[in-house]
């Protein structure tokens, strides 16, 4: 399953990626599963995605919770709590 993943703010800096295309294993179908999958990439990824930090997610530009389903072609974004205004 091919998806696009975007990273913003401190998360972008920590993983040193702003965007990437990922071909996910077929058993990765939720935001939680994707976070766990990414956390296996190394220490800086594990620190972000092991659940100890608040990392918000959006699918196709809408905020979602970690139980949300991911399908092929989705744009998934990870970012810290927002601080605009």
């Amino acid at each position, binding site marked *: 399953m091919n998806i696009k993943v975007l990273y913003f703010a401190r998360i972008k800096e920590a993983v040193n990626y702003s965007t990437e295309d990922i071909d996910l294993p077929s058993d990765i179908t939720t935001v939680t599963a994707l976070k766990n999958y990414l956390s296996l990439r190394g220490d800086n990824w594990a620190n972000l995605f092991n659940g100890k930090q608040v990392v918000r997610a959006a699918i196709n530009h809408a905020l979602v919770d970690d139980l949300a389903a991911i399908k092929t072609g989705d744009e998934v*974004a990870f*970012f810290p*709590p927002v601080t605009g*205004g």
Partner: protein
Amino acid sequence: MSVKIQIEDFDLGLELSKLRLASPSIGAVVSFVGQVRDVNDGDTINTLTLEHYPIMTEKALVAIESEAKTRWNIIDSLIIHRVGTLQPCDQIVLVAVSGAHRGEAFHACEFIMDYLKTSAPFWKKEATEHGERWVEAKLSDDAAKTRWLNQLK
């Protein structure tokens, strides 16, 4: 209802005049302007850089304006939010609401600002005398949003 995300500054007087003069049924315009402060958490701020998530930002702000319009009897609203690198005394954000009467316009303006703070994907990074740091989200902002959730119009 309109939403603008832009690097450049905006003319506050001009924007409010356009909103005010759009209809003779408007009796009130309420606005909020956010400005870059020169001190945060005890440190001098040299610059403030705003990052955002294009497309999602616009969608989130339009949704907030729509929600305000369903909750209150307002005529129009405008959100301008700047991105990029700003300096103390620069304008960051404008929220302006027009309506027949002030009460609904006041509520709608505050509502839009509270939701923008917690729902629109912007992130601030400060350059201080000690280096750069990301601004942390505040619990008080979540509380400001939450109080609207249980409140019927």
